[in-house]
């Protein structure tokens, strides 16, 4: 055997796939992303997905109409479990939104330029997830038309909302989050909207994108202002990634309910939010790149990076579960110990064990490079994580509430078909909005993806 051959057989260090496939140019990126909306026929899979989503949306509207006619009594909520699905779904949806803001703001500030290919639809995901999340507290009020009572406005009653209540903090946190996310998304869209304006075929379409592009001409002055505005908004959105879900966790942690009253809640909720958010990013990215053949722009590198973030945040969440148990045991409070016991073997124990399987066990597969490279496996694990994170909120809310301090006030919670109709209906709302977004707006940021091209790098240096 010759020594040369021996060297050749040494295993090569694993190669990272590129953030943008080789062979792309400025023109090809523009054409790829703008033709998807303006020129190419809409893919048949889009119509199929839209039909399903619109059907679910119709179910949502029907369920909400019946809810408004009959009141929240059609849901399974009752004392002692007065929160139920409405709050589970609120926390689930608002958590999903967090990944979009993390990708667009925090990764931008940290110069993680790979995020340029996925930030646009991730931000859209944030907006639509916040819209779905907002539905639940509103509907849970029972009289949603009086929602403005939550705001501190000069009312003739001269009473203000209870500022010591985390539920009021929620109103501010979520409305701030929605406003900043919308602004950030829109400002980022402006140069791309101008591209669409210039490349659209029909006059009214040109006018429409033209109005939205707000007179963008791409001059150096425009770019300079755009860059500062974008950076400022990224700075504004960054603390929100941490603060919004912290405030949501206060809804629980500030109460003295066993299983809620722990200091681990804020970091553990934020990690859980990002965990489920990245799962949703993958659930969206994988079909989108297949549907619009975007494999050159959303590469295996993006999917792998998302999987790595999931793995990391999933471990923080696992630490949270561990510490909940530890705090219950170490604290020695009989109610906390009973709560842990009730989770492990009580009437909702199957939910807790499924939650551990979905959130702790199965995602450990992501340690394997082979799994991270396998698109189908990533898609399925992401769905498992989304289910797991939903179960987590179910366990937190229902198992704590249904066993109160006094056995005389114990109860049981079962969701009704209307609970399910509203929940699955918001999935319809989310995917309808998402599909309309894919159909009408640049799903990938044209201007930012161009910065990933080798040509852009040479000029910058």
């Amino acid at each position: 055997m010759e020594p040369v051959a021996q060297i050749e057989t040494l295993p090569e260090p694993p190669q990272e796939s590129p953030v943008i496939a080789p062979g792309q140019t400025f023109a090809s990126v523009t054409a790829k992303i703008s033709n998807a909306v303006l020129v190419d026929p809409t893919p048949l899979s889009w119509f199929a997905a839209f039909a399903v989503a619109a059907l679910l949306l119709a179910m949502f509207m029907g369920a909400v109409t019946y809810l408004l006619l009959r009141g929240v009594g059609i849901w399974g909520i009752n004392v002692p479990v007065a929160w139920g699905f409405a709050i589970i779904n609120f926390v689930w949806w608002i958590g999903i939104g967090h990944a979009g803001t993390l990708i667009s703001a925090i990764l931008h500030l940290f110069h993680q330029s790979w995020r340029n290919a996925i930030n646009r639809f991730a931000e859209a995901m944030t907006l639509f997830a916040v819209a779905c999340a907002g539905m639940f507290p509103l509907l849970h009020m029972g009289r949603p038309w009086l929602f403005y009572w939550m705001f501190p406005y000069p009312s003739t009653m001269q009473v203000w909302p209870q500022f010591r209540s985390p539920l009021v903090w929620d109103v501010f946190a979520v409305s701030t989050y929605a406003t900043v996310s919308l602004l950030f998304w829109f400002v980022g869209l402006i140069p791309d909207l101008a591209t669409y304006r210039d490349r659209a075929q029909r006059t009214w379409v040109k006018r429409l994108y033209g109005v939205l592009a707000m007179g963008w001409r791409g001059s150096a002055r425009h770019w300079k202002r755009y860059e500062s505005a974008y950076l400022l908004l990224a700075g504004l959105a960054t603390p929100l990634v941490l603060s919004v879900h912290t405030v949501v966790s206060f809804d629980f942690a500030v109460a003295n309910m066993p299983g809620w009253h722990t200091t681990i809640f804020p970091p553990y909720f934020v990690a859980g939010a990002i965990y489920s958010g990245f799962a949703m990013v993958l659930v969206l990215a994988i079909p989108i790149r297949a549907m619009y053949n975007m494999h050159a722009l959303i590469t295996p590198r993006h999917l792998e990076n998302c999987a790595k973030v999931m793995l990391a945040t999933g471990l923080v969440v696992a630490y949270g579960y561990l510490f909940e148990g530890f705090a219950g045991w170490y604290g020695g409070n009989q109610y906390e110990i009973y709560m842990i016991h009730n989770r492990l073997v009580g009437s909702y124990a199957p939910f807790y064990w499924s939650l551990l399987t979905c959130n702790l066990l199965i995602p450990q597969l992501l340690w394997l490079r082979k799994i991270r490279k396998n698109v189908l496996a990533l898609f399925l694990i992401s769905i498992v994580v989304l289910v797991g994170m939903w179960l987590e909120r179910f366990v937190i809310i229902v198992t704590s509430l249904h066993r109160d301090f006094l056995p005389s006030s114990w109860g049981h919670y079962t969701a009704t078909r209307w609970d399910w109709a509203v929940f699955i209906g918001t999935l319809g709302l989310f995917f309808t909005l998402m599909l309309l977004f894919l159909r009408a707006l640049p799903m990938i940021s044209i201007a930012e993806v161009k910065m990933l091209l080798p040509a852009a790098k040479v000029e910058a240096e």
Partner: protein
Amino acid sequence: MPQLFPHSANSSVRVSLVILVTVVAALAWVGVSYQYGPYTTRQGQTREQPVPFSHAHHVGGLGLDCRYCHTSVEGSSFAGIPPTKTCMNCHAQIWSGSSMLAPVRDSFRTGESIRWTKVHDLPDFVYFQHDIHIAKGVGCQSCHGDVDRMPLMYQAKSLQMRWCLDCHRAPEKYLRPKDQIFNTEYTYPANQLALGRQLIQQYHVRSPQDITSCSTCHH
């Protein structure tokens, strides 16, 4: 290729921004006026009554005491609307032929009550009690205004919750000595705040925390 937008487009956008701000401000103004104004509260509006009874004449002119008609005001939640007999104590003798008083005589003859229109009508979710307010030194005038100068009855105050809370949060601004409660000509002394605080002690008025608690008025 022709220009997508005419020259005027920039100006139109700027003008529409101004219009947008104006419209939002106008809507806010309309909302506030609607909520606070007499259209909603009926403050200052006289009501149609079966007999045009004048408090100005009976109280201001003749000097009747409030309690001559509103007999239960000191001992009941309801101040009391007088029975027709109370009217007839005098009107059997004076103005006994007046056509204006025909409904009073009809009521007396048939025994059917006169259907007065309630002017100070609080919502049903508020439990207001006259007696406790009298017992703690609130003058009639404080809520009902200058009744002795009202030819026809109207609501002098808004009766909105913020108005209730104005006094419940700082009762010392309005409390009177016991013997001045029914005085329609009462003027507050210069040292009202000091006097008010003294009266709070004397009448054992509970703290603003207690009397602004929801269940004080909404059971």
